[in-house]
């Protein structure tokens, strides 16, 4: 690997036909196949959840599952941008801020879903603008600004709800379901609304894909390059507002942010490319939205929001634990393997140095001495060397010495060792030439 500046003129690599097909149709790559596999596994959650909880697959249930699934798809995809912009909590402030909007819309126009959602959207929007305004005009930081906006709007919303409930009006009964979400309230027309509006939001995301990517990664560079960052920022924020508002009826204002954030956090674990992250987050969101909605349909009194979030968080935990490279389990195993490899290497070097100091390559070294010097890891290291045929223990003693292969390998490490201290290499050295 040349990490050097070379004076050689750059020559593009000749691309074979097969490799150019793969770069052009990159969905054929192994990474995308892995994502497809993950998609299958997690989408199975939906029918499985119905089976496990013995829910009957009725028309109503299908409607609810479809609504939850589409919602999760939209929020998962857009949530990826919220997470990468480190604005996850802004989504929380936004959804809480929507509550007074719902209440005011109800006071004006009665229980009309479209009106309620528009009210929610406007209030959520005002909340976000207020947070931005506080941050840019005062010295209050974003977290404090969000806390102020979230709690004041939410408190105002609760007060309005209490006032509405005090009125002699039977139609207000469903309003409380906006706090925790209620799947039972979803009818086919609502699914259409979620699908059409959510689809439009996703379409806009695709249209401005490369610009959204750029402003999410490096706002200053984008602005210096004449990209209208303010407008794009506004569009992206609006799309996130739309996604949240769409989910309020199903997931509720308190927990809606979970469906925005958890799928994206989970998706980030499995991939190293933005497009893959967005696709995966959409899949995870759909799986949790639909399965949560299905399970909540067991009983009319069961709040849907918490169940959707439980499903989403479950996927996030699984991903945080088991995803390759970034997962906790994976990195622990990797660390152990590295430590093991390093122990073997250290043993080889110690044996070699001992030999050198005696000027005799078959000089044995006592295991007890190595353990005293290097700790218990020395034993594992010596066993590994024995397995590789690089060192042997003399029968009936605790004396170790290097085999001829071991001497060659150790000499090579001694040469390279000083230069490659940062990279721990596996002990298996295959090219020992006689």
């Amino acid at each position, binding site marked *: *690997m*040349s*990490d*050097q*500046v*070379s004076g050689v003129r*750059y020559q*593009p690599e000749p691309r074979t036909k097969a490799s150019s097909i793969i770069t052009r149709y990159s969905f054929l790559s192994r990474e995308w196949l892995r994502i497809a596999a993950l998609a299958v596994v997690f989408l199975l959650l939906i029918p499985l959840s119905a089976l496990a909880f013995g829910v009957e697959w009725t028309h109503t249930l299908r409607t609810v599952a479809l609504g939850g699934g589409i919602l999760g798809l939209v929020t998962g995809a857009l949530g990826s941008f919220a997470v*990468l912009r*480190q604005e996850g909590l802004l989504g929380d402030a936004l959804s809480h801020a929507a509550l007074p909007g719902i209440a005011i819309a109800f006071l004006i126009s009665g229980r009309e879903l479209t009106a309620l959602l528009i009210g929610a959207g406007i209030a959520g929007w005002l909340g976000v603008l207020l947070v931005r305004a506080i941050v840019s005009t005062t*010295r209050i930081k974003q977290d404090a600004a969000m806390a102020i906006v979230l709690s004041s709007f939410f408190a105002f919303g609760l007060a309005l709800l209490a006032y509405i409930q005090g009125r002699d009006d039977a139609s207000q009964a469903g309003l409380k379901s906006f706090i925790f979400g209620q799947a039972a309230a979803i009818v086919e027309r609502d699914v259409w609304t979620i699908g059409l509006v959510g689809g439009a939001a996703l379409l806009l995301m695709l*249209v401005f894909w*490369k*610009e959204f*990517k*750029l402003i*999410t*990664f*490096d706002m*200053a*560079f*984008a*602005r*210096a*390059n*004449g*990209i209208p960052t303010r407008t794009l920022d506004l569009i992206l924020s609006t799309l996130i507002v739309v996604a949240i508002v769409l989910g309020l009826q199903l997931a509720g204002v308190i927990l809606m942010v979970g469906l925005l954030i958890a799928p994206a956090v989970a998706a*980030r674990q499995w*991939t*190293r*490319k*933005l497009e*893959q*992250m967005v696709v995966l987050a959409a899949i995870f969101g759909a799986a949790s939205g639909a399965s949560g909605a299905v399970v909540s349909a067991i009983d009319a009194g069961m709040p849907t929001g918490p169940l959707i979030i439980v499903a989403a968080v479950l996927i996030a935990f699984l991903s945080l634990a088991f995803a390759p490279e970034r997962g906790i389990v994976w990195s622990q195993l990797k660390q152990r393997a590295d430590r093991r490899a390093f122990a073997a290497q250290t043993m080889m070097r110690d044996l070699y140095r001992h030999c050198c100091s005696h000027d005799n390559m078959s000089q044995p070294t006592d295991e007890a001495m190595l353990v005293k010097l290097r700790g218990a890891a020395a034993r594992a290291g010596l066993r590994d060397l024995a397995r590789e045929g690089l060192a042997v223990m003399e029968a009936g003693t605790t004396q170790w010495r290097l085999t001829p292969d071991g001497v060659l390998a150790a000499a090579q490490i001694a040469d390279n060792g000083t230069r490659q201290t940062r990279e721990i290499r596996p002990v298996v050295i295959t090219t020992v030439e006689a």
Partner: protein
Amino acid sequence: MQSQRIDELPGITSQLAFEVEDLTVAYHSKPALWDVDLDVPQGVLMAIVGPNGAGKSTLIKAALGLIPRAAGEARFFGTTYGKARSRVGYVPQRGSVDWDFPTTVLDVVMMGRYGEIGWFKHPTDRDRAAALQALHQVGLSEFAQRQISQLSGGQQQRTFLARALVQDADLYFMDEPFAAVDAVTERAIVELLRTLRERDKTVIVVHHDLQTVPEYFDWVALLNVEMIASGPIETTFTEDNLRAAYGGRVSAIGAGRSV
């Protein structure tokens, strides 16, 4: 302000790549830049030096419209930034972004083309080739498909340089490219600067290491909220000017210089 008149100097064309007039920037009513004037002729490598808080990065950001100006204006090739934008490249401080962003080195470099590509279009093979060429120039060819979170600080810096190179600009602003980089990267950047000068590009670099100024650059601006002096190294990088900028703390360095 003891800056030499550019057009009186031999061998320099009178066309300026970058000029700043009466620029003032204030953060919470405290001036970060105060009435700054600066003329940068085409084809020079210029270091902006000055103590911490002197407003070096602020000068670049205000000129590029990234932060609001309280007063004054900046001109690029005799016109506004809006009109000259495609001729100007910008390398922000590498600490300004989240390097755990899920993308590859090649993809970041390609972002330098986004402004050119225009709306609703995807990068083409030509953009890709330009990005690979730029990566080659900064010695990162083999890192094209590498996840950016796996880069060292120096490699991050070179990735940013490559991203600016694909813009194929005539004037580059680099915000502390030498900050905390390894020796390989430092050499790579110096080499790159020289290549750019050979191609008659103008490069303006926020710089910290006074020792290397005469070696790496041929033009210098000494800044400490106000512009202390600017011009060719030989006449501007003097002990007196340095003392004026740094307040007497650099006499040892200044004395050691053959200025």
